[in-house]
């Protein structure tokens, strides 16, 4: 599987580490979250058959974390973006 890194171009997926669903970036606010919120965040995941937004860490490369949209039934990757907020600035 080839991941098209936004800065570095096509890279082999073996250079990456899968970090889970991109929804993990939406962490509950520690000041206001209830125990149920934390339970949902820690344990509950969607399991879609189709497009899935997920985090991939470029461990064997520039160490950036990417948001990859991958179809879980075909492994087709339709979108790759940097996860860092300032991603537009290189």
């Amino acid at each position, binding site marked *: 599987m080839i991941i098209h890194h936004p*800065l*570095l*171009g096509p*890279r*082999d997926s*073996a*250079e990456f580490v899968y970090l889970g669903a991109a929804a993990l970036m939406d962490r509950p606010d520690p000041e206001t979250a209830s125990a149920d919120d934390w339970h949902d965040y820690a344990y509950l995941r969607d399991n879609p058959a189709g497009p899935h937004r997920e985090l991939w860490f470029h*461990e*064997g*490369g*520039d*160490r*950036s974390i990417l948001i990859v949209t991958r179809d879980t039934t075909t492994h087709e990757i339709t979108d790759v973006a*940097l996860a*860092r907020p*300032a*991603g537009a*600035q*290189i």
Partner: protein
Amino acid sequence: MHDLTPITALGGTSQRIDTVGDVCLTEMPDVALASVAARRGKEARCRAALKPLLNADAPPPGRTTANAPFESIWTGPDQWMLLADFTTHEDIAAHLKSHLADTASVTEQTDAWVCFDLTGPRITAVLELLCTIDLTWFETGDAIRTSIHHLGCFVICTETGQSVRILGPRASAGSLHHAITTAMASAL
């Protein structure tokens, strides 16, 4: 009074040189290294401060600069590795910090890496066995971080098809040296 003997990353008192066919692997002990990471919101000021040090703009993704005294490699977004001659710039981190001030975090990296130069007309055959770099497009001034035998390494093209510099984790210098020399013996 201590009486200490300086040794290279591979444990010798002088650089290790291995030659297979017409390709030569040379351990480069006299390289001073420091990483520069621009601080959030100060990226533009960091680039401006780097420019006179590098005698060039800070390199874009996958690229390097090679002007004395500081060479540089792009290592990540708003992050670079700077290289200099150890004999004149042993204090590279302090030197850079004095110029970059609060625009960047500077970390000494000299003793964290082992540096090899791989030179010769058939290095492409060796690199093909070692890493996943697309060597078709790997030209002078390119630098790629990749895995060599599961070790995260920087590979810098210093002359297209003729010469590369490899930076790898110093704690695994022996393993990396073994991997490269084995590939040389296999490929050449």
